[in-house]
Every structure is written in structure tokens, then in C-alpha cells.
């Protein structure tokens, strides 16, 4: 009875040993793996031993042993085949996808050639990226000035970046799971990847680009109800056509693209950066929205709480000079007025009254320090560089009015405004609306989702009132749009010696359409004079009164 169990047990044990080896070792020539193979071979020998012994009673045993050893050899070869074709497959393929390895995988290229890559479309169906045949070669071509949103696809040189990389599986048809796709693969028919449709409204995108002109900066325009990105403008940008190197490109083409990329990298203005989501800026006064939120939510202040501002405030040895008072003879202001007139001295006091932990809590709830879920890589906004910066009163005060060590993305500030409009919740922003197959049928459609709650409903309503007051009576008056509820906050962020960054964040509500904008013009000067007009024009256009 025992002899019946032993072979089966030995065989099972060998499978366990091999499974362990596949999990633990990276390659088929790892010494540990060889040792485990040897163990598995011995176990197989054990499993076969009773049978050999039974046969050997009648036949010469040396020959059986020879047959056994040869059989084990074939067994080990089979294990190696299974490992390379089933278990190590992804590892091997991943290794060659690194272009610096120099390994040429012709099969991958061939696969790419056999598939027409999907298009990238804007929300009205206009194309920004598509495959074209040029001189018998398949070339990726980018159209319109918004093409940088696609990233680039350059199989002959750099692989892919941006949406082209993130949605590569869809665009190259690898995600197709239908029977038709499987059949096409088996029959070696020409396949097409899926198209991806962006939420971008080309009219607003173009408007944003023309408003920004050749100034460096970034704009993001969101639909507050869904989180859909209606415009995502960066300047300066790059031309993906010059980076797209098709397979089989000549050495000259490759060299040209490589030198273009080098130039982009060395360009101090950072044309490869998608500013609205990857640019980190000092927020300036726009951050007062978050400070106010923390104060209102924690009960430290109401919109009507009165603060004293007599032109300067000394904290430790740091002097904060007030330059924003509308009337230098007036020394008391409510929190609402201080928001609308952007009074640093007041917000420094609010910050000190709040303390570091409550400010940190609200900032984190609003998304600072978190990676915003998005279709592209987003830089993480941060409240401080060093954890104890807020423990010093001067640091806390500076942070409260938007300077200090704060660094935020325009997208982050736009999300804060959506929280104000949406009673406190932040949506998951998104750029890709849906994917469609080559025939135009929708394969996948985005369902808007809530990312997190930034503040409670009452706080959101109070902030809404603060922001509209700022447009009705404060310094953001130029943002008024007749017949539309508009709220906003300007910012003029000090950045050392150079001119300050000009900021504007705001929202517009008309009927059931609610949109949010966030504008940064690098070293543009005054937020009210430079960034606000851009934001207002976009908001007006987005709610249909432009």
C-alpha cells in the first residue's frame, strides 16, 4: 500500500518543487533553479522506481536504467520548454521592450505592422492622431495644435509616451477579447486597434491655446459635474510629428528625431511638461480657498468673523506687509472681505488660529500629497517640503496665504474649485471619454466617479459664497459674466527675483452646466490682470455666452 502512495507523492512533490522554483527564480539558468530541477529529476526517478524494479525482475536492469536516465533528460527539457513558453514569457518580452537594451524583437515590430493603430479623437470626432501610409510605410501622424495631448508613438526610436503609452493596449488592439478578434488573429487577418475619444472640446482647447499665446503656462477647464477635462492647454508644447519615428526609418530620420528630443529636453522652458497636470507652482492667494475651508470647517471662523489688518504683521522676526487693502484707513475686515480683497495679514492670522494639523488635514482632504487619479501621470501637489515647516509660526502663516513651501498643479486647484461647486466632493478627473472599435461601436464608456470628499456641504456653500463675493465685490470683479453665476479667486504668486506667477481659479454656473477653470501664466505678473481674463473668456465660452 505504501508503495502505491510513494510514486504519486513523489510526483506531486516534484510539481511543488518546480512551482516554487518558477516563482522564486527569474531565469531558467539560475543556479537555484538548476538545483530544484535536479531535485525534481530525483523525485521523478523515485516515482518511476517501483515500475523499473518490477520490469527489472525479468529484464536486464542496466538497460532500464539507461532508458530511465534518458527519459528524465527529456522530462527536464519539457519543464524548460513549459517554463520559457508559459511562465517566463512576460518576463522575456518585458526585457526587450526596453529600447536601451539594443535587442531587436522583429516579431513585436511585425505584430505592430499587422495592426492598424487606433485613432485618438477629440469629443467632436476631430482626429489628433492616426496611422497613415506614406511611401508604403505606416507612419503615426498628429494633427491640430492640440496633438501634444496624445503624447507620441515612436516604435522606431523611443516607444511611446502620454496617452499613446497609457492606452497602448487599446490602440494596438491587444485588449480585444471578442471572438471576432481572436478569429482574425488565428486567420492572420489585418486587425485594427480601438479608437480612443477624449473629453476635450476642440473649440475650448483652441480658445485656450490662443489666449495663452506664446506665454509659458497651463490651463485646465473641467466639467464640474463629471470631472471631464474640456480643455488642457500647455505652452510651450512640442510637435509629436517630429518625434514619431516609424519602423524601418532611415538612420537620418532617427537622428533628426533624436536631436529634436534632445533639444526639447535641454530647453529650459520645459516643452515636454504638460503643465496643467505636471507643472508645480506656488499657488499664491488661490490657496486662501483651502485655508478658508479649514477655518470654516473647523469652526475657527465664519465668513463674518472680523479680523484686524493694520498693514503689517510681525511673526517671530518675519514681517508680513499688507499691500492688498482696498482702503488703507480701514483696519477691520471680515473673513469674506479678506478673501475677496486677498488680505495676507488676515489669512496669516487665520492660519495661526488654525494650527498646523487642521490646515494639513483639510489640505490632504482636498488632495494635496495624494496622486490624483487621471489618464496621465500627474505631479503630486504638496503643502510643505519638510514636515516641521508648519511648526514654526512664520511658516504656518506664509503657507496660510499661499506662499511658504507650497507647490501645486493647476489641476489640483481646479479640483478644489469643483469641491466648492459640488457641495464638497471632488470628482475623478478624466481625459478619455470612451473607446470605440474600428467600426465605431463603443467598446468602453467612462462612468464619472467621485474621487474623495474635500469638505462638508456647509463649508462648500460658504466657500461658494466667498468666491462669488470675490467676483461681485472683490478684486475678481473683471470675471463677471452677465446672466451667469461666477465665482473666482486670483493669485499672484511670489517666486523670488522674477515676476510672479499669475493665477486664476474660478467657476461658472448657468442652468445645469457647471464648469471650473484653473489658469497659470508663468511669471505673468498680476493674477487679476493676466490670468483672470483668460479664465473668464474660457468660462464664458464653456457656459455658452462667449
Amino acid at each position, binding site marked *: 500500500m505504501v508503495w502505491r502512495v510513494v510514486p504519486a507523492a513523489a510526483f506531486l512533490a516534484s510539481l511543488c518543487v518546480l512551482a516554487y522554483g518558477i516563482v522564486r527564480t527569474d531565469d531558467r*539558468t539560475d543556479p537555484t533553479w538548476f538545483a530544484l530541477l535536479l531535485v525534481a529529476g530525483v523525485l521523478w526517478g523515485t516515482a518511476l522506481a517501483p515500475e523499473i524494479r518490477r520490469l527489472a525482475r525479468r529484464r536486464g*536492469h*542496466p*538497460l532500464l536504467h*539507461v532508458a530511465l536516465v*534518458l527519459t528524465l533528460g*527529456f522530462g527536464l527539457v519539457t519543464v524548460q*520548454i513549459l517554463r520559457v*513558453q508559459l511562465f517566463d514569457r512576460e518576463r522575456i518580452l518585458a526585457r526587450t521592450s526596453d529600447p536601451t537594451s539594443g535587442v531587436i524583437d522583429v516579431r513585436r515590430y511585425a505584430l505592430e505592422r499587422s495592426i492598424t493603430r487606433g485613432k485618438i479623437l477629440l469629443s467632436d470626432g476631430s482626429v489628433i492622431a492616426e496611422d497613415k501610409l506614406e511611401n508604403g510605410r505606416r507612419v503615426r501622424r498628429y494633427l491640430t495644435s492640440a496633438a501634444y495631448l496624445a503624447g507620441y508613438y515612436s516604435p522606431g526610436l523611443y516607444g511611446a509616451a502620454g496617452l499613446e503609452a497609457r492606452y497602448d493596449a487599446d490602440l494596438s488592439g491587444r485588449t480585444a477579447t471578442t471572438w471576432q478578434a481572436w478569429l482574425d488573429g488565428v486567420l492572420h487577418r489585418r486587425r485594427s486597434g480601438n479608437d480612443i475619444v477624449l473629453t476635450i472640446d476642440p473649440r475650448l482647447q483652441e480658445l485656450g491655446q490662443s489666449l495663452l499665446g506664446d506665454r509659458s503656462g497651463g490651463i485646465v477647464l473641467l466639467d464640474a459635474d463629471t470631472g471631464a477635462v474640456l480643455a488642457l492647454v500647455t505652452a510651450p508644447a512640442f510637435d509629436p510629428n517630429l518625434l514619431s519615428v516609424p519602423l524601418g526609418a532611415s538612420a537620418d530620420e532617427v537622428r533628426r528625431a533624436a536631436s529634436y528630443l534632445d533639444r526639447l529636453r535641454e530647453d529650459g522652458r520645459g516643452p515636454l511638461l504638460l503643465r496643467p497636470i505636471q507643472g508645480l507652482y506656488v499657488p499664491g492667494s488661490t490657496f486662501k480657498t483651502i485655508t478658508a475651508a479649514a477655518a470654516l470647517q473647523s469652526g475657527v471662523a465664519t465668513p463674518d468673523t472680523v479680523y484686524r489688518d493694520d498693514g503689517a504683521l510681525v511673526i517671530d522676526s518675519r514681517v508680513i506687509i499688507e499691500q492688498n487693502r482696498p482702503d488703507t484707513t480701514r483696519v477691520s475686515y471680515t473673513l469674506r472681505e479678506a478673501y475677496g480683497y486677498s488680505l495676507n495679514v488676515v489669512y496669516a492670522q487665520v492660519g495661526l488660529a488654525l494650527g498646523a494639523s487642521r490646515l494639513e488635514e483639510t489640505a490632504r482632504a482636498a488632495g494635496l500629497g495624494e496622486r490624483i487619479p487621471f489618464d496621465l501621470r500627474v505631479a503630486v501637489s504638496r503643502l510643505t517640503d519638510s514636515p516641521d515647516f508648519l511648526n514654526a509660526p512664520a511658516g504656518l502663516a506664509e503657507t496660510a496665504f499661499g506662499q511658504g513651501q507650497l507647490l501645486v498643479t493647476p489641476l489640483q486647484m481646479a479640483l478644489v474649485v469643483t469641491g466648492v461647486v459640488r457641495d464638497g466632493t471632488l470628482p475623478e478627473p478624466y481625459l478619455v471619454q470612451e473607446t470605440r472599435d474600428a467600426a465605431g461601436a463603443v467598446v468602453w464608456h467612462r462612468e464619472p466617479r467621485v474621487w474623495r470628499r474635500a469638505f462638508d456641504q456647509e463649508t462648500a456653500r460658504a466657500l461658494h459664497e466667498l468666491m462669488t463675493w470675490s467676483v461681485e465685490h472683490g478684486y475678481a470683479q473683471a470675471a463677471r459674466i452677465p446672466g451667469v453665476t461666477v465665482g473666482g479667486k486670483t493669485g499672484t504668486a511670489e517666486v523670488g527675483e522674477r515676476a510672479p506667477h499669475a493665477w486664476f481659479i474660478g467657476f461658472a454656473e448657468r442652468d445645469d452646466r457647471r464648469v471650473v477653470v484653473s489658469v497659470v501664466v508663468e511669471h505673468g505678473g498680476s493674477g487679476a490682470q493676466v490670468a483672470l481674463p483668460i479664465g473668464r473668456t474660457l468660462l464664458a465660452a464653456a457656459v455658452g455666452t462667449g
Partner: protein
Amino acid sequence: MKRGGPVVRWLELQLLVVPATAALVGLLTIYLARVGTTQWTWSDLTVSLIFIAVLGLTSLWLGILGLRGDQLVLPIVAMLACLGLLLSQRLSPTVGGGGLWASLSQRQLAYLLLAFAVLWITVAALRRLEWIKRFKYTWALGASALTLFTMLFGTDLGSGARLWLDLGPITVQPGEIVKVLLVFFLASYLDDYRELLTSSYRIGPLSLPPIPYLIPLVVMWGIAVLAIVLQNDLGNALLLYGVFLVMLYAASGRGYYVGGGLLAFAGAVIVALRLFPRVQQRIQIWLNPWSDPTGLGMQPVQADLAFAHGHIFGSGWGFGYPQAIPVVATDYAFAAIGEELGSFGAIALVALYLVLILRGSFIALRIRNGFVRVLTVGLVTVLGLQTIIILGGNVRLLPLTGITLPFVSAGGSSLITNFFIVGLLLRASEQARG
């Protein structure tokens, strides 16, 4: 067994339908994959039709000769040869400066026909294998002379080893036939000294094999070492030495001869590793081809990629890119099959070899005559070990060596020699009984 008149080998004929069908379907697939349409005529399948005709005629010829032995070996070998033929059609690079027999596929067909001719002649001419024993020193002398001649006048076809003899229009690899001659000699020699099987003697605590075993052990070890050092031919050294150890074991039944022999070989390899950077480099590339993926490691890396892309079902005949592997037709035939036929095809191929080897082993088991028995074991081991070494090299179980995959790899010398071995096996199987 009594000699009888002509017979019809029905089982064999029936089984040959499988390689025949595979040859037709496979060639058609390759042809259609290349032209990209579904239009074809029978003349596109000429190669397969010739192959099928030869298969049928071979079985009939064996029947006419009255061969009553094994009927499985030929169909298995035919299937392997069919895969080899298809692979050569598939790869089909032009060899040399053109002409009628310029392409690899045409050459391979010619070699295959020649190999079948050798099979026919072998089975017809060698009715009793005991005849081989009478010329044992002739075989030994022949093998030595050929080896020496190749070492001195051989040419290197790019593998870093002088293994080929240039005979004008064709080049031959004498190493292939040397293996068989060596098996002839060893079988005869070991059979002669069979009675000394038990007479080991002791020196102090050591129990040494009797002198007639010890001498060839040392000589073979020396030859293997020389092959590694002088010819840079690790594969053949391993193969010859392994075959020798197996035959020694089969004749004597003493496991420790094999153990001692293996230790001695391992020792030699370790010393070679220390002394010769070339050997060390080869081991390094085996263990980590990614250290130089575009230079020395290009072959194993591309083979890995071929296997990886093959996945479970493979890309299909004609739809893969095995040409990306340098020297695929001889060194990496198995990787090409792994890519185009997938794990299923690759494992089926391994299974075919396994069945062939086991069939050969069981033929040997049932042979009473000591000489024929050891001879058969030797021949089977030549095929089996060679297959394991090259398959192991392809899947990186072992370092890659330049030996060929029996019946599949491109190359005339190896094909003809292996069919010669099949002929001998078929004759030997006639003596299997009980």
C-alpha cells in the same frame, strides 16, 4: 527468427499516413502563408509528394526484404524527418551561389532522399549485425583516422571548431559517422571482455575496474578532453563520452564506473574552465545571455524571444520569424519549431523523440545476443543523448553546443548517419524476442 519471404508491413504503412498528411498540410500552410492567398496547385506540393512516395516505397522495400522487425521506428523517424523537411522549406535561405540545388530546402530534400537510400541499402546489405564485430579494429582505426584527418585538414564553418571536410561542391562532417564507428568498436570490444565483468581488483581501499575497462575509460576520457581543448567541441565530447559511459554501464552493470567517469569528466570541464577563457565565456553566455544581448548572447536571447512569442499554440507554420535567430537551421531548429508550433508542437516533438528512444531501448532489452544488445543500446544512446544535448542547449538547460537535432536540423552528414542508425536499429529489432 526464421527468414521468411516478402511481407507487407501493414501497421507501419498505416502509421505512415500521419507524417504523409503532416507533410502535405504543413507544406501547403507554409506555401499559402508565403504567398498570402488561397490559390495553389499540386505542383506546389511536389516536395511533399516526393517525400510521401519515398515513405511508401521504403515500407514496401522493407517488406520485400522480408524484414519482420519493429514497425514503429520508421513512422516516428518519418514524422521527425517530415518536420525537418518542412522547417527547411520554411527557412529556405539561399545557400552558396545559386544553381539548382542552391536553396536549403532543395538541398535538404536531396539529403533526405540520399538518407533513405542509405537506409534501404543498410537494411538490404546488413542481414546479420554480428558481422560488424569481425572488423572491430577497422572501425577503431577508421574513426581515429577520420578524426585526425579532420583535425588537421578540416575547415571551420563559423562555429569556431574545425569539424568539416571540404570536398569541393559539398562539405561533410566526419564527426557524425565517427560516432557510429565508435559505437561499433566499443560494442565489439566490450562484448569480448564480458567475462571479466566481475573481476575487479582492489588497491588499498579503492576497488578499480578491471584493466580492460580501465584502459578504454582512460583513453575515451583523453579523447573527450582533446576534443574540448583542440576542437572547442564541447557538445561532441559530451556526446561521445556519454555514449561510452552508457555502453560501459550496459555491458558491465557497474554504476560506479559511470559515476567515476562522470566525476573525471566534470573535473576536466572545471580545469578547462580555469584554463581556457573561451570555455568560460561560453558558460557565461549560457547562464546569462542578457549580459551581451546583441553580441555573443544574441543567439540565446533571440531563441528565448522565439519561444516566448510562440506561447501555447505557436504562430503557425510560416507566420513566425525564426530567421531572427542566427544559424537557426542547424543550431536552433527546435526554437523555430517552438515558435511556429508553440508549446504543443515543441512538447509533441520531445514526445516523439522519447517514444523513439524508449522503443529503441525496449528493442535492446529483448535482444539476447550480448553484442547486438550493447550495439543497439549504443546506437539508441547516440540518438537520445544527442537530442537531449541539443534540445537542452536550445532551452538553456545546458550550454549550447553545435551538434545537430537528429532528423530535423539541416545538414546532410547528420541526416545520412542517423538514417544509417535507423537501418541498423530495424535490423537489430528482428533479433528482439521474448
